């Protein structure tokens, strides 16, 4: 560890940022912060960062940014200022600005400590432990007009007149079901068979039969078009017959 580190713990984690580290280093100059030598401070900071790097400690980027900034400031402070060349803020101003930041941070730290040392509620002073709650008596004024009343009556007495209409959907034998059933049973139709033989046996009710016949007939048309079966009807309204066509 370098001498410049001055026994400081080389633990970056122990500092709340570069300004905190700078303040700690400045305090070690053991002078009033108003007389701190920024040049000397920059040197110490750079030495600290060097030492930390030497130990391969992980250093957050903002410490490095500050190191670069201080190196720049140092070079500017050491060089005589050239009035003909105006590049950026005056070095003295920058140094004064940094000194101000250090003084302000230190002042805020001191203020924080004094604030925290005050008698605090719940620690040093106490409020009434069993306060009497303020009883809020809520008076509710109900707003109802005669019209509300009449409308209410009208609403409730007409409600009974309307019972919701439930339309029961009739059972429909779907075309897909008919196609499936025909496909499964077509093997038995090696000779002409009446279409009724292919109706679902459990569809007995007249309306259901009608639906089953319609869907089954539509399904035979579909299969006939595909060339899977042949259809015939001898006379108008006569029985419809079908037969499988062998592939």
């Amino acid at each position, binding site marked *: 560890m370098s001498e410049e580190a001055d026994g400081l713990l080389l633990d970056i984690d122990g500092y709340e940022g570069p300004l905190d580290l700078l303040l700690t280093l400045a305090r070690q100059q053991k002078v009033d912060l108003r007389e701190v030598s920024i040049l000397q401070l920059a040197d110490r900071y750079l030495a600290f960062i060097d030492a930390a790097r030497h130990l391969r400690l992980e250093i957050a980027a903002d410490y490095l940014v500050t190191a670069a900034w201080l190196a720049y400031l140092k070079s500017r402070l050491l060089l005589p200022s050239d009035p003909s060349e105006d590049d950026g803020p005056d070095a003295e101003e920058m140094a004064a600005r940094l000194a101000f930041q250090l003084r302000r941070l230190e002042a805020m730290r001191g203020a924080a400590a004094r604030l925290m040392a005050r008698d605090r509620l719940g620690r040093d002073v106490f409020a009434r432990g069993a306060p009497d709650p*303020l009883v*809020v008596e809520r008076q509710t004024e109900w707003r*109802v007009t005669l019209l509300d009343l009449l409308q209410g009556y*009208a609403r409730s007495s007409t409600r009974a007149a309307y019972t919701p209409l439930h339309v029961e959907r009739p059972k429909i034998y779907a075309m897909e079901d008919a196609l499936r059933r025909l496909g499964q049973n077509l093997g038995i139709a090696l000779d002409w068979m009446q279409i009724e033989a292919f109706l679902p046996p459990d569809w007995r009710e007249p309306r259901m039969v009608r639906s089953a016949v319609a869907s089954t007939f539509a399904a035979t048309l579909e299969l006939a078009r595909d060339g899977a079966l042949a259809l015939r009807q001898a006379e108008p309204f006569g029985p419809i017959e079908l037969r499988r066509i062998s592939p």
Partner: protein
Amino acid sequence: MSDGSEQKGLGFAPPDADEQERMVEAMLFSTVEPLSVEAMEKRMPRGSDAAEAVRRLEARYAGRGVTLIRVAGKWAFRTASDLGFLLRSEETATRKLSRAAVETLSIIAYHQPATRAEIEEVRGVAVSRGTLDLLLDLEWIRLGRRRETPGRPVTFVTTEMFLDHFGLESVRDLPGIQELKAAGLLDAQPQGGIAVRETEEDDDDETVDEDQSDLF
């Protein structure tokens, strides 16, 4: 303070009586639960006499806005009872009566005396206990005569306050069904045709004083 001298001998004099009173005052002020003399003495410097401090404090607060009282052998500060009004504030909020309450009230008004079952029949839904309680509370309805039918159900009738609130001379002033229809308030003829029954306003409130809780 009997052992005060002994304490003094050890160089730890207990605080003086005023100081002990301050301590008891602070403890009783900040505590959540009433405190016993023993509990206070335990927290005070050795040689303190909490009982005496409490006696002094009690006298000091006598007649003040806050007084020291004894609760089950323990002590607590309480607001003087005559000042309770200061800790109360009144707020008036206007609220709309629920739909269920408006409908129930209107059915009672038109059908009175009406039993709960009759109200439910018209509304088609159960009437909640809360709805009837609210209307009774507002004193817009009261209990009428029991119906002389099986089970002797109680009936509900409207009150003077109800008439007052709605600016009605009597319940006969409520518009009839035909008028409601004409006003466009009734869209359809209800089944069975509902007529406004003649009410018996001179029904006496014989049942009112009965315990209401078993009525519903």
